[in-house]
């Protein structure tokens, strides 16, 4: 299996890093939810062949390589869980619970308005973009926008909570 080019690799990292927390194991391994053992092993081999950190040692800067190891370690974890029927079943149950929990706890509208008022106009704009992205199902952009907002207000409990819910 051919290692990815540096360009492919960096584009992938830029795309995946902001969304990493929001991706589930199937998305990380890039397999459909009903994938069988063979598909899962094949997908892992494919990804490992392309982006394993050993194949890109020092082709990347140390910080880029570090990011690659972080992403690869998550893909390995996804593989560990999905290849075992027992782990996979437990994971699906936990995921369902987690999703249910995050959609039932909703803040009151006036609470949101007052929390928003404390933020800078730019951060408010980013928050609105995140909510809009979330509605269209684009979790990755939602997370990215919230993170950018959070960068402007690192202490904001409101934004932190919103990000946590999104994850």
């Amino acid at each position: 299996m051919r290692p990815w080019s540096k360009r492919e690799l960096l584009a992938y990292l830029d795309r995946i890093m902001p969304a990493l927390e929001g991706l589930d194991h199937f998305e990380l391994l890039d397999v459909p939810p009903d994938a069988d053992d063979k598909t899962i092993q094949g997908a892992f081999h494919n990804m490992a062949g392309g982006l394993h950190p050993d194949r890109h040692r020092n082709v990347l800067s140390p910080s880029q390589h570090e990011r690659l190891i972080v992403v690869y370690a998550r893909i390995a974890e996804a593989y560990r869980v999905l290849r075992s029927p027992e782990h996979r079943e437990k994971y699906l149950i936990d995921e369902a619970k987690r999703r249910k929990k995050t959609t039932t706890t909703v803040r009151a509208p006036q609470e949101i308005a007052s929390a928003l008022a404390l933020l800078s106009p730019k951060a408010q704009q980013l928050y609105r973009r995140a909510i809009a992205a979330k509605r269209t199902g684009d979790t990755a952009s939602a997370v990215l926008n919230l993170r950018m907002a959070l960068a402007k207000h690192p202490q904001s409990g409101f934004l932190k909570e919103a990000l946590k819910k999104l994850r």
Partner: protein
Amino acid sequence: MGLSIGIDLGTTNSVAGVATPEGVRLAADSKGNRVHASVVSLPAGGGRILGNSAKVRKATDPSQTIYSAKRLIGQNVRAPLVQLAMASLPYPVEEGNNQQPIIVVGGRRMTVPEVSAMVLTHLRQLCEEQFEEEVTGAVITVPANFSDSQRQGTKEAGRIAGLEVMRLVNEPTAAALAYGYGRSMDQRVAVFDFGGGTFDFSVLKIDSDIFEVLGTDGEFFLGGDDIDQMIAEFLASQMNRTLHIDPRPIPTAMNRLSIAAEQIKQYLTSNEEAGGTIDGIVVNNSGKSVSVEFELSRDKFDSMIEGYVERTIDVCRNVLASTGLEVKDIDDVIMVGGSTRIPLVRQRLSEYFAKEPATRINPDEVVAHGAAIQAAMLAGAVHEGERGELTDELADNPMPIDMGIPEEGETSQGGAALLLDVTPATLRIATAGGYSEPFLEKNSPIPIERTNLFTTAHANQSRVVIECYRGGARRQDENELLGSLELNDIPPGDRGEAEIEVTFRVDPDCILHVRARDLRTENEVEAKLNVIGAPVSDNFRTTLDLPEGLSEKQAAKLRQKHEKEQQKLEKKAEKERAKAEKQRVKMAKRAETGES
């Protein structure tokens, strides 16, 4: 940019080499031997003797000659198996900081990584002489079942020897790489690695250039050394019976018997019967040296080691079961390590797998071959980066690194292979009531990162201690404690209200890092686990390497100065340790009162 070599740092023997486009070249000593004894001899007169020249000194200068250091590396001296191993070593081993073993030879106190570093330095120098290039990086192999502290000790040894340890590779994985590299095969192979000190068994899937470990297991303290010990015991009891002299309490006598035992074992590989006289084992009351006559048949030898061999087959059975494979799914069996030369081992192995093991491979050299290939591959990626501006065209077409082991009738495919290795043991986290739960089960792919949520066991608990274990048992104390991590200042709340996010990260060298975060306060602690028995690099004594050409007086002065510095360091370390111990007790108490 210097040379990147592969090193098989073995319990009894070591091999080092470099991968070249023509194949792997192994470093030979002046007599042409490619296998070097992992022995260091420090004669009373000064200097050091290494490798095969040091091996003969095991008999002539036993108290100054260190061997089998690998059995002690990264070990807790107080562990029962380590105590047992120490009992059969003729050189004294003491307890140092953090319960690490300290080897004492000729008044010099050395940590085990320091001793292993001498072996590594010897190999490095052989490579540098032979390949006429400076060696900078190395891939060092370790038994697959090596624990965190053993791995850290090995890395430390490499560092002391002035090597950049590019990677620790598991020995069976390296052997499989040497076996399958450049042959673009689609096979499942079993690697049976029975060496001088340890036994490992791994099953791999080779999918053209990807080498994925499906399962591995092994036993530490199961190797050729143990078999020698068994024969030595047999000779000792023979001596006791016929001559009424018991050599067992006499270390020098037992040492001579183990040297004879190794020769007898090797003789029995190709002969049905061994017999003769061993001279000069002890000196009797009248000042005469005593010899012992012995006779040992292959059958008797087989019945002596049968238990050991069955243990290895049990491990094979367990690994196969854990991977969901059957014996018939294995395409080839690779034998590694000198103990696979024992006829009974070969016989049981071919019976169990219902096929003859692969014989085209040299069991002493195959691991170093694999290590050298991996070193070249990792360095190859380095070279790419060193071409200054790396264009994407170049990255798209990486230079093929072609250093397969050429064989008759086969063309090497070359290219970069990829090793996908696994954790050899289950990593666990302590839970309430003396139990533990698995966090990353054995045979998990590495590098890997897993995060999970935990909570407090009591109301208003302000502190949690995350204890990490290694092993397969539910009860905490039946596993090996790797270390612990503390998270403090947890805000008051009901039992189970706190959300503690714990992350286990296993790095490519298979060393565990643990991180804990309180999700409500965002407090975070990250730590490398403090492992008992692991080398403590800051405190331990260093040996003094005197420059050549000094007068006796100058040398004595330098030695004295060094000794003083060492004593100071030791005192300081001792103080710090006592302080840390005190603090630990205090904290444990605080927690108790906080929880109740």
